[in-house]
């Protein structure tokens, strides 16, 4: 009904030309934009705690408080980003605004000294991130035929994660070279942010959006809330409520004597490397076996990770196994859920649909983190994990049952 043939992504010049193995050039370009931007944000994120305490002389605890607040703000801005992208019909320029805002924040960071200024700049950065995610995912979705969506998101997330891994390495290489080189890291970070924005602005076409029937008509949330999307929101939200942040899993490993504390930052790197390696193959698996099926199966890997931590038989082996399982979980969920959500709503409401699901997942995981933190202190890490694990194990069969319907809905016209 909303899909006329000329609107089909396959007809757009950005669509793959040489069979299914390739993804659209715009997906790769967007991936590189994310890679460069992630180098920018992760290099600063890696040094910020040291910078705030060692140079600015702030109590780190006060930084933690503001940080939590912005997570919530970012989640709400995300919905706004999706809505603005659909309302204007120009997701590229909404994403551009988001990337631009983060770049401006990195520039202002060069001149910020007090806690208030630095937190304001970090807030602007987070708002930018919230704003750009859904429009960007909608662009990936629009440029890709449905049968290779998983692959396309896999390519994008692999590039994105590569940037996240390179950023801290650059930061610490600079600090090793120039021990007080915090400002140098920030200058480098700003440079990468500018390149990301320029790449998006200059080389990503503002095309792969279907013509709006009713020009600049308001986004109707009733249209967004189609049965398929509502089902996905419910399933993903419910699973989000029993998803324990990886930070907690690492802490639990630490408590149970898995490794020495100073390896802590490396665990994030390890998980990212696995995610990076699996993003594309798991994405392609999602194209063949059904995205919802793979999404739910990814939560099976999460459940296995809980079990490994709770049992914690051999310290080194369980640490490595948990990294492997968490990387698999991210590869099977993060890009796949965006790929799925984009198929469950009409094309012109794609960004809003993706944003809704992502926001619900983020909020559900925030609630879950708070609740799990409470459980942890009442029961201890092992018992708390057992409780959450049992809840997840009970939820999985139900989720699997709905996965089949979701995949059918995503395969047919919405």
């Amino acid at each position: 009904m909303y899909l006329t043939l000329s609107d089909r992504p396959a007809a757009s010049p950005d669509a793959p030309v040489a069979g299914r193995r390739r993804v659209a050039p715009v997906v790769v370009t967007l991936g590189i934009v994310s890679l460069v931007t992630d180098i920018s944000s992760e290099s600063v994120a890696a040094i910020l705690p040291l910078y705030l305490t060692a140079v600015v002389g702030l109590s780190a605890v006060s930084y933690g408080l503001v940080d939590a607040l912005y997570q919530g703000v970012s989640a709400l801005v995300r919905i706004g980003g999706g809505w603005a992208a659909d309302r204007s019909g120009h997701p590229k320029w909404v994403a551009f605004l988001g990337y631009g805002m983060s770049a401006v924040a990195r520039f202002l960071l060069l001149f910020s000294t007090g806690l208030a200024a630095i937190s304001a700049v970090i807030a602007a950065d987070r708002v930018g991130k919230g704003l750009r995610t859904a429009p960007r995912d909608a662009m990936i979705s629009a440029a890709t035929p449905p049968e290779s969506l998983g692959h396309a998101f896999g390519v994008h997330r692999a590039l994105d994660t590569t940037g996240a891994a390179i950023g801290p390495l650059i930061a610490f290489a600079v600090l090793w070279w120039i021990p007080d080189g915090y400002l140098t890291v920030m200058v480098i970070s700003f440079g990468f942010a500018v390149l990301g924005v320029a790449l998006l602005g200059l080389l990503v076409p503002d095309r792969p959006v279907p013509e709006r029937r009713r020009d600049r008509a308001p986004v109707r949330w009733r249209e967004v809330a189609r049965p398929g999307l509502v089902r996905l929101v419910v399933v993903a939200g419910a699973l989000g409520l029993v998803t324990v942040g990886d930070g907690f899993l690492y802490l639990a490993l630490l408590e149970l004597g898995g490794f020495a504390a100073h390896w802590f930052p490396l665990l994030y790197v390890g998980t990212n490397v696995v995610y990076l390696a699996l993003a594309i193959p798991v994405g392609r698996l999602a194209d063949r076996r059904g995205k919802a099926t793979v999404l739910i199966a990814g939560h099976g890997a999460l459940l296995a990770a809980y079990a490994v931590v709770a049992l914690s038989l051999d310290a080194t082996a369980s640490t490595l196994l948990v990294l492997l399982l968490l990387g698999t979980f991210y590869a099977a969920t993060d890009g796949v859920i965006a790929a799925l959500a984009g198929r469950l709503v009409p094309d012109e409401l794609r960004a809003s649909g993706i944003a809704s699901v992502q926001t619900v997942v983020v909020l559900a995981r925030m609630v879950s983190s708070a609740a799990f933190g409470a459980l942890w202190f009442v029961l201890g890490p092992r018992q708390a994990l057992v409780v959450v694990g049992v809840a997840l194990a009970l939820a999985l069969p139900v989720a699997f049952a709905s996965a089949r319907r979701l995949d059918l809905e995503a395969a047919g016209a919405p």
Partner: protein
Amino acid sequence: MSRRTRVSLFLALVLVVVGGVTAYAVGSAADYRRTYQRPPSVPTVSDADEPAGPASGPRIVFRHTGIDDSYGRVATVRLDDPSGPRTVSDVSCDRVDATDEVTACLRTERGVVTTYSLTEYDAGWHELQQVPLPGIPSRARLSADGAMVSTTTFVSGHDYLQVGFSTATEIRDVDGRGHGDLERFALVLDGERVTPRDRNVWGVTFADEDTFYATVGTGGRTYLVEGSLDARTLTSVADHVECPSLSPDGTRIAYKEASTRDGATWWTPAVLDLATGERTVLDAEQASVDDQVEWLDDDTLLYGLPREGEAGSTDVWALDARGSAGPRLLIPLAWSPAVVRP
């Protein structure tokens, strides 16, 4: 704009950005080498020149913070001449405390993975023990007899969805075993046994072999707790006290009192009389003091303040503990003072 123009424009921008950033980095590396190779701007004296110099006898041990070739090293001045020449050791610390026999040094060791450690030294700078710390050094305190050491560090989480920081505070026997994380001690607030999940413990000050004081933060409030190592308990004795420091005569606690100014936390040094509960807020100090105070003697407090406009440099100030006089600069370019009376 044609695609070719846009590609050329982007490539030109890449050149400009890479060139500019590289030039900046090379310049700041050269700057760094230049500034960190110059000698200190304050008078120094070497141990060899003066055997009875600042490194022995009554003294103040601290971290030198001049931007020079001795930045971050442990230095010493004579107690009766704190603004006089200092000896500078070869040991670098972020946070230091010392007795006549033992020096405790908290350090950040940078690398691809940045690590943190506590190193205990004897009087001849021989390493007694090194233990890894879970986070960024914040406070270090030795007991008066040098038998125990406590460390407070900031542990940074790294999850998109979690609060970024919490504190980790531990007590160890010097050259011996640890007593575990103080967050695991049984907590009694206002007479009631509680187990809040958001509790944080920081800023230990030792009273005797068993007893110590510290701050517990939970639910947005802070408490002064009296701790027992043997019983593994923390019991609140007052509220609204941060980073306690017990006076040499054991009757008073110096601390920082939090308030809000321009939307940010502001700390004013203050003194609490343990027997009467009477508080003296020392608002003669106009700056916000984020430090664990050290007692110079029973009448005078010491603490570090960052230098305005000179990132990384700090000074140690002295303040009358009864509030009858304003602060005076005691040791320029110094941080983390420890008073040693052999």
